[in-house]
C-alpha cells in the first residue's frame, strides 16, 4: 500500500515540476507521468575489486552490486528486511533456517535462480583459499573455518527451490543479514571464470549491465532496468549511470551544473553553502555510521577501576555538540549510544549514557578520583590517518581534554590509512586511536558483536567482559526482536560503564539532487534508493 502512496506523490511532484517549467531534463511536452525510460545519473567511485559480491566490501563496488544482484531479502527505506528472492525464511530455534525461493526467478542470462545459486555462491565466498574480503560473513554457518579450506556443512539443499542453513549458535538476526552483498546468489557461469565474471557480472537484480564492457574503468558504469526482475525494488526509471568521481568536489560541481542527477556526498568545502545552494534538494540525515576512538586496555592507567574513571572523565570532557556544529557544520549527529539512530531498537536513554553529556566539572572530579588510585603521567594521544580529513576534530577533542582535565593531550597523525590500520591490527599501537563502524546490515547486533565481544574479529581494543558477552548471546537466541533489542540495550549499559571506545557521533549522509529528478530517498545505508527515483 505504501508503495502506491509514494508513487502518487512522485507523479504529483513530477507534474508540478513540468507545469512550472522547472524540469531541467529538457522534457518538451507536458506529461502527466514520470518517464520510465529516463536514465538517472549519480556519483560513485571506481570499484576497488572485481564485481564479485563476496569480494566487494567498499561503497564504490557495493553501490553497483546492490543494484545488479537481488538477495533473499532487501532493505526498505526504513532498513526493514523485505523478501526479495525468498518466498519464506523460517526457523523455530534461530539456529536452523529453512529458506524457500520464489519460483520462476532468473538471472539476466536466463538461468533460473535456485537453491544451488545461493549454496554455490556462499561456498565460494567462504572458502579460505578464495581469499574473499567478505568471507567472515559466513563464520556463523556450520563448517566455516578461518584456518583451512573447509566446506560449509551447514548448507543443505532440500529441493531445487529450498535449502536449509544451520548455524553453530543461535543468531536471531541471521535473516536480517541476508540482504548484505556477501549473500547474493551467483549464476553457474560465475564460478567457471571468476575474473571474467567480475568484469561483466550477470545478476538478478533490478538493474543489469547495459552491455558487455559497460563498466568503463575510472569513468562510469551504465546500468539499465532489468525487465525480468519481479521483486519489490522494480525500477521506476530506465536505468542508472554511475559516474566515478575522484573527489566529492568534482561531483558537487557537476550537480550544480546539472551534469549529474543525484549525489550522496557533499564535499567538506561546501558544508557551509550547500543548503543555500540546493534548498530543499539538500539531504542531511543520520546514517548507520558510528564514530569513536578506542582506548585499548593495555595502555597504562586504562584498566580496572582507575581506567573506568579515566574513560568516563574523557568522555564527559568532550563537547560533542560544539564540535559537530563548528567543525562538521552539522553533518554529524552527537552520539547517544554505540549504534545508530537509523537502526531498529536504537535508544537515547540507555542506562549510563549520561557520560556522553558534556560536563567539565564532573570530568575533572572523575579524573582526580582516578589520580587518587594512581597518579596520571604522560600524554594522552589519539592516532589517526592524516589522509582522511580527521585532523580538525582530533585537535578539537585534544583541546577539550587539555582544558577540562588539565592534561597534555594531542593527535598522533600517521601519513596513511594503511599504516594506522596495520599498527592497530598488529597491536603495536601504544595510544588511543580513531575507530569507525559502518554497519553491514541494519541490526543492533552488528554494531556490538563484531566490535566488543571477547575475541571478536574487529575488537581492536581487546575488550572483554563476560557479562556483556552473555547479554549478546541471550539477545541472539531470542526469537522476538523487541526482546532481543532489549538485551542489546542492556549490553550497551555495560559498555557505557567500561567505555572500551569513546562514542563521538554518527556520520550523517549528506547529498543532494537536481531539479529534474524527484522521489529521491536515502536508504538506511546512506545510498539513495535508485529504483524509486523518477525523472521528467
Amino acid at each position, binding site marked *: 500500500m505504501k508503495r502506491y502512496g509514494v508513487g502518487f506523490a512522485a507523479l504529483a511532484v513530477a507534474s508540478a515540476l513540468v507545469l512550472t517549467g522547472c524540469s531541467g531534463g529538457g522534457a518538451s511536452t507536458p506529461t502527466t507521468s514520470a518517464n520510465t525510460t529516463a536514465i538517472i545519473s549519480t556519483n560513485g567511485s*571506481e*570499484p*576497488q*575489486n*572485481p564485481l564479485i559480491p563476496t569480494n566487494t*566490501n*567498499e561503497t564504490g563496488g557495493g553501490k553497483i552490486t546492490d543494484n545488479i544482484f537481488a538477495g533473499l531479502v532487501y532493505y526498505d527505506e526504513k532498513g526493514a528486511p523485505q523478501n526479495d528472492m525468498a518466498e519464506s525464511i523460517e526457523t523455530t530455534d534461530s539456529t536452523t533456517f529453512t529458506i524457500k525461493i520464489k519460483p520462476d526467478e532468473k538471472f539476466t542470462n536466463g538461468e533460473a535462480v535456485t537453491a544451488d545459486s545461493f549454496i554455490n555462491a556462499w561456498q565460494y565466498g567462504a572458502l*579460505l*583459499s578464495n*581469499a*574473499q*574480503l567478505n*568471507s*567472515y560473513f559466513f563464520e556463523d554457518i556450520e563448517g566455516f573455518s*578461518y*584456518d583451512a579450506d573447509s566446506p560449509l556443512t551447514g548448507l543443505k539443499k532440500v529441493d531445487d527451490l529450498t535449502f536449509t542453513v544451520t548455524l553453530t549458535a543461535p543468531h536471531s538476526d541471521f535473516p536480517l543479514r541476508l540482504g548484505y552483498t556477501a549473500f547474493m546468489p551467483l549464476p553457474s557461469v560465475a564460478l567457471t571464470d571468476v*575474473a571474467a565474471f*567480475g*568484469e561483466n557480472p550477470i545478476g538478478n537484480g533490478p538493474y543489469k549491465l547495459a552491455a558487455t564492457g559497460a563498466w*568503463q*574503468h*575510472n*569513468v*562510469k558504469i551504465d546500468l539499465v532496468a532489468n525487465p525480468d526482475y519481479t521483486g519489490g525494488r522494480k525500477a521506476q526509471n530506465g536505468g542508472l549511470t554511475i559516474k*566515478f*568521481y*575522484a*573527489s566529492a*568536489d*568534482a*561531483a558537487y*560541481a*557537476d550537480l*550544480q*551544473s546539472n*551534469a549529474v542527477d543525484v549525489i550522496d556526498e557533499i564535499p567538506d568545502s561546501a558544508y557551509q553553502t550547500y543548503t543555500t545552494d540546493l534548498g530543499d534538494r539538500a539531504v542531511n540525515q543520520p546514517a548507520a555510521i558510528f564514530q569513536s576512538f578506542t582506548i585499548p586496555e593495555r595502555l597504562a592507567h586504562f584498566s580496572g577501576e582507575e581506567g573506568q574513571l579515566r574513560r568516563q572523565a574523557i568522555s564527559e570532557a568532550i563537547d560533542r555538540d560544539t564540535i559537530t556544529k563548528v567543525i562538521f557544520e552539522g553533518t554529524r549527529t552527537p552520539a547517544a549510544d554505540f549504534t545508530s539512530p537509523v537502526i531498529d531498537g536504537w535508544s537515547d536513554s540507555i542506562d549510563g549514557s549520561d557520560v556522553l553529556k558534556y560536563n567539565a566539572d564532573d570530568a575533572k572530579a572523575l579524573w582526580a578520583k582516578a589520580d587518587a588510585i594512581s597518579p596520571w603521567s604522560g600524554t594522552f594521544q589519539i592516532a589517526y590517518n592524516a*589522509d582522511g580529513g580527521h585532523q580538525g576534530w582530533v585537535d578539537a577533542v585534544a583541546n577539550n581534554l587539555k582544558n577540562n582535565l588539565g592534561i597534555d593531550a594531542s593527535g598522533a597523525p*600517521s*601519513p*596513511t*590509512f*594503511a*599504516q*594506522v*590500520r*596495520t*599498527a*592497530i*591490527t598488529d597491536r603495536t599501537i601504544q595510544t588511543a586511536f580513531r*575507530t*569507525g*563502524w*559502518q554497519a553491514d546490515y541494519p541490526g543492533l547486533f552488528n554494531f556490538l558483536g*563484531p566490535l566488543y565481544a571477547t575475541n571478536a*574479529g*574487529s*575488537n*581492536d581494543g581487546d575488550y572483554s567482559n563476560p557479562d556483556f558477552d552473555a547479554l549478546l548471546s541471550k539477545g541472539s537466541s531470542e526469537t522476538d526482536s523487541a526482546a532481543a533489542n532489549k538485551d542489546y540495550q542492556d549490553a550497551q549499559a555495560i559498555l557505557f560503564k567500561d567505555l572500551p571506545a569513546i562514542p563521538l557521533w554518527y556520520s550523517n549522509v549528506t547529498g543532494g539532487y537536481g531539479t529534474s529528478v524527484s522521489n529521491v530517498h536515502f536508504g538506511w545505508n546512506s545510498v539513495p534508493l535508485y529504483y524509486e527515483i523518477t525523472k521528467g
Partner: protein
Amino acid sequence: MAGYILRRLLQAIPVFIGTTFLIYFMVFALPGDPIIALFGDKTPNPAVVAQLREQYHLDQPFIVQYLIYMGGIFRGDFGISFSGQPVTEILARTFPVTIRLAIIALLIETIAGILVGMVAGLRKGKLFDGTTLAVSLILISLPVFVIAFVAQFVFGVQLGWARTTVGDGAPIQDLILPAIVLASISFAQIVRLTRSSVIETSSLDFVRTAYSKGLGRRRIIPVHILRNSLIPVVTYLATDFGVLLVGATVTEGIFNVPGVGNTLYQAIIRGEGPTVVSFVTVMVLIYLLVNLAVDLLYGLLDPRIRYVK
C-alpha cells in the same frame, strides 16, 4: 646523427633500471600493509590476509619482489592491480587521455606564450609589455588548484560555457578548460623566457646587420630574431612536458579526468607497487624520448649545434 641517437637510446637503459629500482624501493618502504587497508575499518582475518599477500608476492623480501616484477616486464606483463586488472590495460587506458591533455596544454602555452612574449619583447617598456609582465607574475604565483577551482566555477557552473567535469571518452572539447588551467603557469614562464630572449637577440650585431642590409621586419622578426630566441624556450618546453604529465594530478582530480594523475594517486594511496612503478617508468621513458627529440631540434634551430661524430 644515427650514432648519436643510438647512444642516447642506450643511455636510457641504466636510467630505466635505476628509476624502477628506486621507485620500487620507495613503494616497498611505504609504511603499513596495503592488504590490511583493503578491509577498511574492519579487522581482517589473518589467513585471508596471508592468502592475498602471497597472491601479490608481498610476503617476499624486497629484492625478490623487484626481480619478479622486472622478470614480468620483459615478458610484457606489468603485474595485476588489486582490482584484478592487468596494469598494462590501466596504462593503455589512462596514458592516452593524459597525453592528449598534456599536448593540448602544450600547444596552448607554446602558441600563446611565444606570441605574447615576442610582442612584449619587441615593445619593451611599452604598456603591453608592462601588463604582460604583471599578468604573468600573478599567474606564476597562483597555485594551480586555485586557478582550477575558479575556472570550473566561473566557466562551468556559472556561465555554462564548458562542462564542469570531463565526460565520456574525454573528448577534446571537454579537455580544453582543464588544459588552459594546466597551461596557465607554464604560459607565464614561456612569455617571460621569450620576452627576455627576444630583447637580447634584438640588440645583437647580426640583427643590426640585417636591418642595414635593408631587410623588412616581416623577415627579420621570424627568421632572425625569433628563431635565434627559441633555444631556451624549447629547452623549457621539453622539461615542461614531463611536468605536465605528472603535474596533471591536481587538475585531473578537480576536473575528474580519467588519466594518469588520478590513477597514480589512487595507486600510491593503496600501496600498489606494480601499478605505481609501471606508471612512473612509462613517464620516465616519455621524458627521455621528449628530451632526445628536443636535443635534435636544437640542430634545426641553430645549425652550429651539431651531433656529428
